[in-house]
């Protein structure tokens, strides 16, 4: 079987065009020869394993297979192996794809986000720091120092930097602060899963309460007066 040059391009379209990828044996001690050839994909369509000339081929894996993404044959091999219904996507995969480029990207992206989240926290002090901690559901006791609160925020930033960034950039942050602070100071009541203000139901979830406040922005000045008492 031979496929066209267009098909060859299509087959390797899901792979990066640079970097190194390893196909590792999941359990080298128990692995002999794993033969890779054409297979039927999830839709039942036959997917051939071809070389850069479109000619069908077979790959035998006995140890780690190093693939260079600048090499067309290697890209075709990766595209084929990473979708394998038995060796990779089976119930007990026997091969593992280690894409150094993707792993490095993910790592750098995570570290960048961590750094972005850390810089947001670093600048916060006093009441804004406490307000942001409340938004993230960190309990702020009256006697808590800034350092203690910051420490919890930094820990949260290491675990989930995206949450810190999203909450900081959220348009609803000001409303969330008002509600969290209002509950702490008794301006709003939160009982049996219901958020209320002056006996009026704001909602049965935090999001609904935020939505209520957004729709009733005219209440905020009077609420702020109560909060600052």
């Amino acid at each position: 079987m031979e496929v066209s040059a267009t098909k060859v391009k299509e087959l390797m379209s899901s792979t990066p065009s640079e970097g190194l990828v390893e196909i590792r044996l999941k359990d080298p001690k128990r692995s002999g020869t794993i033969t890779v050839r054409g297979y039927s994909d999830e839709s039942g369509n036959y997917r051939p394993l071809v070389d850069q000339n479109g000619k069908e081929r077979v790959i035998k894996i006995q140890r780690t297979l190093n693939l260079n993404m600048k090499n067309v044959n290697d890209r075709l091999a990766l595209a084929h192996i990473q979708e394998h219904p038995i060796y990779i996507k089976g119930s007990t995969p026997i091969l593992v794809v280690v894409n150094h480029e993707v792993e490095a990207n993910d790592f750098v992206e995570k570290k960048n986000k961590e750094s972005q989240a850390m810089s947001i926290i670093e600048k916060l002090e006093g009441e804004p720091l406490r307000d942001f901690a409340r938004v993230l559901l960190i309990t702020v006791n009256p006697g808590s120092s800034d350092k203690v609160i910051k420490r919890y925020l930094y820990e949260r930033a290491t675990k989930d930097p995206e949450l810190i960034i999203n909450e900081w950039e959220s348009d609803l942050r000001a409303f969330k602060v008002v509600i969290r602070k209002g509950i702490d100071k008794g301006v709003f009541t939160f009982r049996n899963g219901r958020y209320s203000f002056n006996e009026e139901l704001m909602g049965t979830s935090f999001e609904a309460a935020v939505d209520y406040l957004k729709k009733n922005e005219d209440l905020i000045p009077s609420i702020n007066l109560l909060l600052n008492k």
Partner: protein
Amino acid sequence: MKFHQGTYGKETMQSNALSTNLLKYPEIAKTLIRQYPQYSLNYFIDGTSRFAKEELIGENAFRWPIIGRLNRPSTCTGTITGNGVGFSTFTVEFQENYFNPNDAVKFKGGTQAIVIGEPVASSGGYTFTFKLQTNDANALLLAANVAAGLTANTVGSAFPEGSDRGYENHVYPDWYINYIGIARKSKSITGSALTDITWIENNGQRLWYFTDEELMREEFLYQKELDDWYSTSTMDANGNSTVIGIDGKPIVKGDGILRQIDAANIDTYNGTLTEDAITAFLAQLKLNTGNKNSHWMVFTGTAGQVAFHKAMKDLVYPSGNLVYDAAVGQEVEIGVNFTSYNAIGQRLTLVHTPIFDDPNLHGNDIDPVSGYPKESFRMVFLDMGVTNGVANIERKVKGAGGIDRGMIVKYIAGMVNPFDQKSMMAANSRDAFTCEILCESGIIVRNPLACGQLVYA
């Protein structure tokens, strides 16, 4: 073996009850397995004890070593200096520190060189100094033959006269471990069902058991067969169970055959086999094991049998037609059953494995072309041979000092006591007695690399 139904009466005594005789003569447990044709694996392991055997162990874990090749290749990093031309020295960096001084090393392309001196640790691994093993001053080592990822291996050693010493390499066996687990089943036989019994006759013995118990026993043995194929270990690398039962106790379970050999030697086919493909796979197994005259038992479902039949038919009758002389007026019976195949000194024998066909288990994944479950195409090549008196595939059963937990069957009397209706003693007040069945065993494949699979993909 014969079966027939009967009624509980004066002939159904404790002395000829199957359960009593199971306790006295444990080999009957194996005889029982033979009565159900769906138990292909258990048939060969427990039923015949011919191709594999059962062995008692006192622990729930079994460890065994396997040693592979006694040497190994070294991997080039691509860092070299010089090329050896004019009998000059050159260096090659390898990831491993495995060569010794005076080793003769063969590179890709066939060039050989002798290691001169000890290696030096370098950024990518270890740098060895070589001189080409040649008498041609123009000979050289091409850089392409020591590119990153290529391997080189020793082909001997070359020492001058009066050398001080030889050098040693160490190879260690790989240790494997598998666990045995407990399987149980029970059935209550009510007072009303008590009178229905089944007689079995085998090897001159006539034994009986309660018919209601039969279904439970049949299901239990079927589950045991499934367990032997499909079980997955619950144990971590430190030998601790990762699954804790509702009573807070760890559940110990070992790997079945398929988990033990899943990466051993595996190839795929799309439902259509050719004699070439079968021979290529046999060649692969031969290449990896180095065995001569191996006999592979190939366990497969109906679809695998059909694919094998077609491959053999195409080999023997490439025209697609069987040629025969039909004598006029005579009844003609045609057709062949291909059950065995020999090539390159290897032999395979096909064994039908009905559990690969089971629609209850594999009904969600059907081959759209043939309508068979994809699992039915699975062909498991097992080396069931015996090397130095040790079977490659063995059932390990918990037991020692006369205790054999391979198949324990007990009756618990309620308002019904199967062997003593007049007894005033009962373990509970139910209008029934309970039959409990337990097995503590596991299966091991000593050398998984001597086995392989052809699977549908």
